[in-house]
């Protein structure tokens, strides 16, 4: 099944690298949507069918954590798997993210293999 994926990061270069990595990893992608912060992401999630979200934590306007909190308040959005892609390596922060319902955490810099493994695990468990 081709996945509609939303990539949320304030860095254009990171969004581009994630898109390229998904391609290299051989993930079956339908449409890819991009957002520069959590608020833009929520607007896209409101309009489009999204199967999987990759999101950074530290972004202007609305952080990835705030975005996840907002998604949890919505009956439909809370079912969409969110993968956090961030530079942070704090185990405490990762535990906090998991408690919020985040499905996986990928630390930058990442490899295509890591992306593929995470996508496969999420889709198999869905």
């Amino acid at each position, binding site marked *: 099944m081709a996945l509609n994926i939303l990539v949320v990061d304030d*860095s*254009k270069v*990171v969004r*581009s690298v994630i898109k*390229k990595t998904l391609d290299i990893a051989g993930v079956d992608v339908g449409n890819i949507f991009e957002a520069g912060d959590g608020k833009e992401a929520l607007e896209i999630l409101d309009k489009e069918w999204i199967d999987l979200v990759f999101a950074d934590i*530290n972004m202007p306007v609305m952080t990835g954590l705030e975005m996840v909190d907002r998604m949890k308040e919505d009956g439909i959005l809370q079912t969409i798997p969110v993968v956090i892609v961030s530079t942070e390596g*704090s185990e405490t922060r990762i535990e906090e993210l998991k408690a919020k319902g985040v499905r996986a955490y990928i630390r930058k810099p990442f490899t295509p293999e890591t992306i593929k493994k995470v996508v496969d695990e999420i889709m198999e468990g869905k």
Partner: protein
Amino acid sequence: MDRKELKNTIRDVFYDIIEKSAFMFGEEVEKDEVDVNYDKFARADMGFVGDAKGEISIMVPEAMCPEIAANFLGVDPEDEKVDEYSEDALKEILNVTCGHVLTAIKGERAVFDLTVPNIKRGIKLKEWEKLFRSEDSIVCMVDDYPVLIKFSIKNED
């Protein structure tokens, strides 16, 4: 961790990040070995708060930014879209370096909130030389480009 160890840790982390992210390679260099033949530089800055607070900056010749971006994107440095991504690429290198430096020096239980990086271009050689002479700056050499990093940290009580 004393000052020398801290500088070595930051340099090692930076070399690892720029190699993995942009396929560019760092080499050991002493300050007196660095010859700078550039007149314009770019500097990215960001801060962090949490179990400690501080700032990190990176200054590079402007000519290096398109190369970082091209390597991130896997395209030729002459590609028309590279310029659009140049600032973001330097900011991202700083962002990832900051996260990994904090883990390296404060451990995996420490929690930080990182600010969004800012960038300034068109910096003159005089400002580069001022940072270069500072005892706080860390000099690196990446693919023959000189790079300066400045890091400050203060523990929260």
